[in-house]
């Protein structure tokens, strides 16, 4: 059974229909990574609540750095993704379909933004912000890991709607 979608018969019909994408990412990889991230974010929330502000801030810095890695290098090259490829994927059946890495990469950027706000506010002395940012990022990562919810996809559409992204007509039809 071919893994890659072949649609030779029906080119996308809409004028601005997405160009053919080359999905190359096992969608279970980012979900696996989101699970690890969610657990660590929960630890940040716990540390923040118990008053271990320094530890909470340090762990959030590490998680923000990991989000930055995913956002810059791409979701396929995230450290958790490498862990998944090395140890988890060999034990699983081949994926039903492959995924375009752009949405999970965008989601990593969203995670970076949220955790970075927490880190900056934590650094200027607003300790509760660390826990709040971690809780917000946890909800997104948890929904991604458990329910396959793509917050990046949702936010991307809302940003397009509000005119902040994708402004102007498609350059190439």
């Amino acid at each position, binding site marked *: 059974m071919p893994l890659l979608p072949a649609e030779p*018969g029906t080119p996308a019909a*809409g004028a601005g229909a997405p160009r053919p994408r080359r999905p190359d990412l096992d969608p279970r990889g980012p979900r696996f990574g989101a699970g690890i991230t969610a657990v660590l974010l929960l630890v940040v929330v716990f540390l923040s609540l118990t008053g271990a502000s320094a530890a909470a801030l340090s762990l959030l810095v590490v998680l923000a750095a990991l989000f930055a890695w995913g956002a810059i290098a791409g979701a396929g090259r995230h450290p958790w993704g490498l862990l998944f490829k090395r140890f988890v994927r060999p034990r699983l059946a081949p994926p039903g379909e492959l*995924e375009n890495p752009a949405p999970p990469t965008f989601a990593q950027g969203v995670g970076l933004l949220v955790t970075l706000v927490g880190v900056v506010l934590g650094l200027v002395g607003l300790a509760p912000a660390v826990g709040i940012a971690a809780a917000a990022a946890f909800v997104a990562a948890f929904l991604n890991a458990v329910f396959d919810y793509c917050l990046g996809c949702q936010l991307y559409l809302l940003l397009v709607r509000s005119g902040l992204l994708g402004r102007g007509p498609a350059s190439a039809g």
Partner: protein
Amino acid sequence: MDPILALGSVLALVAAATGLGLAWRARQGRFTEVAEAPALTPADVASTAQFGAEATLVQFSTEHCSRCPGTHRMLAGVARSRPGVVHVEVDLTHRADLARRFQVLQTPTTLILDRTGRVQARVGGAPHKAGIIAHLDDLPGSRHATLAR
């Protein structure tokens, strides 16, 4: 905060996120019947392709949408297997106006148009193939609906 209380708060956070996820999942792929909508033309959705003689499946996508390619394959397959049914994918990435006009709040969102171009149903999220086929069967004037009478 007391560690036990902190642990309780953390568990409450997990429970809240689970509730959110369950609520989201229950709404995924659900069909909404659309009452009395004006007929659309291909130009309304920036499509260069003609609409189907029996029905048209209009799929709204963006470039950042993990489920759109899978939905595209499924809907294109349904359109291929049914004469007169056409699948049209519309990329909203550069068409914020269409996203606002059709009030698309998530991708993919699929509209089922009848032979006249009227929107008969709408699905937010990845639709199920069986649901799409059942709706196509029930469209007014479809061969299936005529035979059943």
